[in-house]
C-alpha cells in the first residue's frame, strides 16, 4: 500500500474522531512515513512497517476513550457563537432534542452538550454553519439509549429577530424537534423517532418534515411554497396553516387532523 492510500484508509477508519484529532494522527503518521523513506525504506515498506490498520485504529481509539474517562469528563454545556452573516444552518445530530428559538441577543448562537460519549464538530464557512455530532464508537451501537435527560443534553439554536437566515436543515434521531416563533424561508426537519412541534412559523419558501415514528404538530404556519409532512407511524395535526402552494401530508399508520387550513391543493396520502 502506498502512503496516500494508507492515509486515506486511516482517515476513513478514524472518521468518528474530531477533525482536529484526525488531522493530528494523519500528520504524525505522514511524518513517520516520510522519515522512514528518507532513511532508505521504500514507500511500500515504510507503510508495511507501521503494522495493521486495525491495530493502529485500536490503539488510537483506546487512547481517545481512556483520555476522556481519566479526565472524568462529566459533560458540559457549551455555547458556539456564529461569526458570520449565516444563511444556512445544517445540523446532523443523533439522539438529541433540538429547539430552535428566537433570541433578543444580537448574535446567532448554539447551545449544546458534550461528554465522554460524544462531541460536536462545528464548521463555519462564509455563510454556512455545519454542526455534526461525533459519537465515540463503543457507544454508537447502543443507539444512544444512554442519553435520557433531554433537558441536559438538548441543542438549542438561538436566532435573533433581525437575522436573515435562508435555510434551516435540521436532522436528529430518537428525539424531538421544536421550532417556534421564527421567520426562516426554508425549513427542513428530520427526526426518526420523535415529535416535531412547529409553532408560529413563517417559511415563505416552504417547509418539509420527515419522520419514521414521529408525530407532527403544526400550529400557525404561513408559507408561500410547499408544506410537506412525511411520517410512517406518526399522527399529523395541522391548525391554522396557510400556504399559496400545496400541502402534502403522508402517513402510513397515523391519524391526520386538520383545522383551519388554506392551500392550493391538499393531498393526504394514507398507505397501508
Amino acid at each position, binding site marked *: 500500500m502506498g502512503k496516500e492510500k494508507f492515509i486515506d484508509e486511516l482517515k476513513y477508519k478514524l472518521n468518528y474522531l474530531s477533525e482536529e484529532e484526525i488531522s493530528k494522527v494523519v500528520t504524525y503518521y505522514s511524518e513517520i512515513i516520510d522519515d522512514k523513506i528518507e*532513511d532508505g525504506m521504500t514507500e511500500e515498506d515504510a507503510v508495511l512497517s507501521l503494522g495493521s490498520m486495525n491495530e493502529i485504529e485500536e490503539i488510537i481509539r483506546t487512547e481517545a476513550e481512556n483520555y476522556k474517562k481519566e479526565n472524568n469528563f462529566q459533560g458540559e454545556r457549551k455555547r458556539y457563537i456564529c461569526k458570520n452573516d449565516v444563511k444556512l444552518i445544517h445540523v446532523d445530530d443523533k439522539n438529541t432534542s433540538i429547539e430552535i428559538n428566537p433570541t433578543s441577543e444580537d448574535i446567532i448562537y448554539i447551545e449544546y452538550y458534550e461528554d465522554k460519549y460524544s462531541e460536536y464538530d462545528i464548521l463555519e464557512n462564509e455563510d454556512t454553519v455545519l454542526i455534526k455530532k461525533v459519537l465515540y464508537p463503543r457507544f454508537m451501537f447502543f443507539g444512544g439509549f444512554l442519553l435520557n435527560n433531554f433537558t441536559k443534553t438538548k441543542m438549542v439554536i438561538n436566532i435573533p429577530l433581525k437575522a436573515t437566515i435562508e435555510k434551516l436543515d435540521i436532522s436528529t434521531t430518537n428525539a424531538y424537534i421544536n421550532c417556534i416563533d421564527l421567520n426562516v424561508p426554508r425549513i427542513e426537519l428530520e427526526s426518526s423517532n420523535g415529535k416535531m412541534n412547529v409553532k408560529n412559523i413563517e417559511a415563505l419558501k416552504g417547509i418539509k418534515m420527515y419522520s419514521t415514528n414521529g408525530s407532527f404538530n403544526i400550529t400557525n404556519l404561513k408559507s408561500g411554497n410547499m408544506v410537506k409532512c412525511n411520517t410512517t407511524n406518526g399522527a399529523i395535526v395541522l391548525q391554522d396553516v396557510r400556504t399559496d402552494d400545496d400541502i402534502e401530508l403522508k402517513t402510513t399508520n397515523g391519524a391526520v387532523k386538520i383545522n383551519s387550513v388554506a392551500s392550493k391543493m391538499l393531498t393526504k396520502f394514507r398507505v397501508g
Partner: protein
Amino acid sequence: MDIQLKKGLLENCVLAVLNKEDSYGYQVVKDISPHIKISESTLYPILKRLEGNELLSVYSVEHNGRLRKYYKITDEGKKKLKSFQEEWMEVMGVYNFIVSKI
C-alpha cells in the same frame, strides 16, 4: 511485561531521550527500541499524554520541504524523570532483596 508498568516505563524512556536533546517521532522510536519494545503506533498515545500533562512541548521545524514535529522536555518533565530515578532506587532495593531469596 505488565501493561501499566510498560506504559510508565515508556513514558520515562521518552522523557529520558528528550532530556538529552530535542527529537522527533521516528528518531525517538529508534533510540528506545534497543531497550524496550516500542512501535510508532504505541509511541503516539504516549507523546499525546506527555504533552497533555505538560511534560513535553511541541514545535515544528522545516526539513527537506516538509514540516517535522519536534518534542522538547519541559521543567516538569525533568522533575518527573528525577522522581522516577528516586522511586526506582527504592524498587531496586526491594528487587535485590527478593532475588537474594530465590
